């Protein structure tokens, strides 16, 4: 069967495919391209942080505290003389890690529960009531409770943000499963004696992927925001870790004196979230042409 796909590829050619992509995605959805490029830029920055003219983000240097942006410190320094530029670049690592980890975890767990809930009617009632329960707990509150129970760490924060995201993914997947399970090709597979796990993976799961990719971008963006909020109110990652939320929280009291401490991580966070959301919108239009046409 791989021979087929290869032949199909040859028909249009890899180069043709790239041209198609350029014509279909980039030309029709320029916002997708902008969002994608911006996000790739941020991720590269996070990975290459040590090589981007940064210094140690937690090195104290009280002599140079609260300096305005200048040649030696592009984004200025904070009240302990730490370089805000370095802290912002290294902060991208934390925020993007939390965002992507939460997206991957909540999609993986939500997809599993959603598939089971949508296809096995007996479990549906129980699982969905549990999800209702989870949804009724405010996300921030749950995070604060978890962090204060098990101590502040990157992992705790990630888990705390993941849990409230799961029900939304479950609902989305379940809705898709409920509509697809009635399709004749699924019934034909049942009649052919295909086992339940195979039916779910082979015939139903692929239909949930396009909406999930879109959902993942929104989860990622909102997780980054939640992480920043938690850091800001002091319930997030430990204060010595330079996450954007922590940097802004520390800069809060010096806002009138040294607004750059908050301004630069803030604008970076906003740009990153915007990039992810724009990318998500673009992907939604590409993956579901019906919505795109209406707009």
């Amino acid at each position, binding site marked *: 069967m791989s021979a087929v796909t290869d032949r199909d590829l040859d028909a249009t050619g890899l180069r043709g495919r790239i041209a198609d992509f350029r014509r279909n995605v980039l030309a029709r959805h320029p916002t997708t391209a902008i969002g994608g490029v911006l996000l790739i830029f941020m991720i590269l920055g996070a990975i290459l942080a040590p090589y981007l003219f940064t210094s140690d983000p937690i090195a104290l240097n009280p002599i140079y505290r609260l300096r305005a942006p200048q040649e030696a410190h592009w984004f200025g320094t904070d009240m302990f003389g730490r370089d805000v530029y370095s802290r912002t670049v290294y902060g991208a690592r934390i925020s993007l890690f939390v965002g992507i980890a939460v997206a991957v975890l909540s999609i993986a767990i939500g997809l599993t529960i959603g598939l089971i809930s949508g296809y096995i009617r007996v479990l549906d009632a129980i699982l969905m009531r549990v999800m209702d329960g989870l949804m009724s707990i405010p996300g921030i509150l749950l995070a604060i409770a978890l962090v204060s129970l098990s101590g502040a760490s990157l992992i705790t924060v990630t888990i705390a943000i993941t849990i409230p995201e799961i029900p939304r993914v479950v609902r989305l997947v379940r809705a898709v499963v409920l509509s697809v399970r009635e399709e004749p090709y699924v019934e*034909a*597979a049942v009649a052919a*004696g295909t086992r339940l796990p195979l039916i779910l993976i*082979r015939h139903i799961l692929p239909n949930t992927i396009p909406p999930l990719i879109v959902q993942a971008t929104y989860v990622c963006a909102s997780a980054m925001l939640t992480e920043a909020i938690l850091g800001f109110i002091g319930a997030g990652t430990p204060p010595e870790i330079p996450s954007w939320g922590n940097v802004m929280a520390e800069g809060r009291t010096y806002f009138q004196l040294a607004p750059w401490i908050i301004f630069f991580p803030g604008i970076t966070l906003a740009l990153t979230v915007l990039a992810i959301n724009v990318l998500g919108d673009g992907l939604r239009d590409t993956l579901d042409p019906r919505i795109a046409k209406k707009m």
Partner: protein
Amino acid sequence: MNDAQGNKTQPILDIRGLTVRLPASADRENAVEDVSFSVLPEEILCVVGESGSGKSVTAHTVMGLLPPKQLQPTAGQVLLQGEDLLKKTPNQMRDLRGARMSMIFQEPMTALNPLMSVGAQIEEILQIHTQMSAREREARVIEVMRAVSLPEPERLIHSYPHQLSGGQRQRVMIAGALALEPVLLIADEPTTALDVTTQAQILKLIKDIQRTHGTAVLFITHDFGVVAEIADRVVVMQHGKVVEQGVARTVLKNPQHPYTRMLISSVPSMTPPVRPPKDSAPVVLETRDLCKTYRDRSLFRAARETRAAHNVELSVRRGETLGIVGESGSGKSTVARCIVRLISPSSGQILIDNNDIANLSASRLRENRRLVQIVFQDPYRSLNPRRTVGASIVEGPMNFGVSRAEALTRAQDLMKLVGLDPHALDRFPHQFSGGQRQRICIARALAMKPEVLIADEAVSALDVSVQAQVLELLDDIRKRFNLAILFITHDLRVAAQICDRIAVMYKGEIVEHGPAAEVFRAPQHDYTQALFNAAPGRDFEFAKFEAA
């Protein structure tokens, strides 16, 4: 209008050399090309053709309802009583629509707004186009509703579409279309979604209206039975072009163009061919007292019971085709789904080779899945669009321990058998036409080497020429594998051609049962008689052409 009466030769609608261009990505350049025909006063003109023939595009062009930018008329004229509609502005077209020409659609449920009472929907047309007072409007609404024989119009105007039957909804659509006494009524497959008895009533209604109101009717259909029933003149379209037109009887009895001849000879006859009885063959499938009852439980009211199938007893012998005939809601599909065990029967037995599979546990049922296979109605949804057809065909055998290599060899043989290229196994469903997909579904079912094949409306979604080929294929594999086929259909013509015996279902029960020839010659039950009388063009013997 008086002019038209006085001058019979002045057509109501005159289409001259109409060409509508398709978007660049389509498979041909023009949706319709150089189409010319006219609708005379007080006549019913049927435009007939298979899917993709451009008949609907023509009708939508007349109404000015083409999707803007995608489809554009590039040449020709559309003259409504001498005025060229293609030259009208969108505002002028809006004034014409509903007032001087109106249209009824195939799907009466989606063509009506579910949130507005039907009276209000008809009244809306009067509100837009006339200066009538509220009282005059209501009187007129009741008048037109009475004209289309809707019961108790005074009460019915306050009803909502979901409270009406399909036939009543279509009557409401027609009432709305007639409210302003248009000179031209366009009907786009208005009875295709309806049951055959309802279809007969709606056809009669359209004929009556055309007679009493003198309305010219442009009637679009794919069904030659309907054509024989109501057409004065016929236009046959193929690939966007008119291939033949003329007086209905002449075209039907003495078609000139080979395509028309092929189409008409593909229409199955209502007279079953002589088939050898198969009384000696062993019974493969038998149901005893099969019942399926749906209980609608609710916290706040008593449980409601719906009997979808009640005491269904049927048996199919090896090498025999049993047809289950009935209208929508008769329970014929429920019976099929019970036998395939996609749903569990409420009570009764389903015997396959004398083994009861009605109450098997999930794991025991899986072992028996091989024995009964099903082919569904909708070829576009029956194959997983993300998997190659080869993968779809080998899935079943591989579930039962057949190696991939062996299953693939079997799949190739079957592709040849159903008349497709064995190398096409690597392709995806969207690369095939509807008829080809249905062949693939048959191959997929046969790959399991079943004892019983169930065809649930398996040819109903296909064009008539494709339908004839798929029917032939089904009959061919029945003979070749000595299969028992349970053939479920609403189409009496199809049933007459392929079935040895026929069971007629009505409201969940089998009301008549017997050899096809007998049931068709002398139906016993009242319902069967009504059903047969309603079949469009029943007296018309297609394919018996007169010598030219």
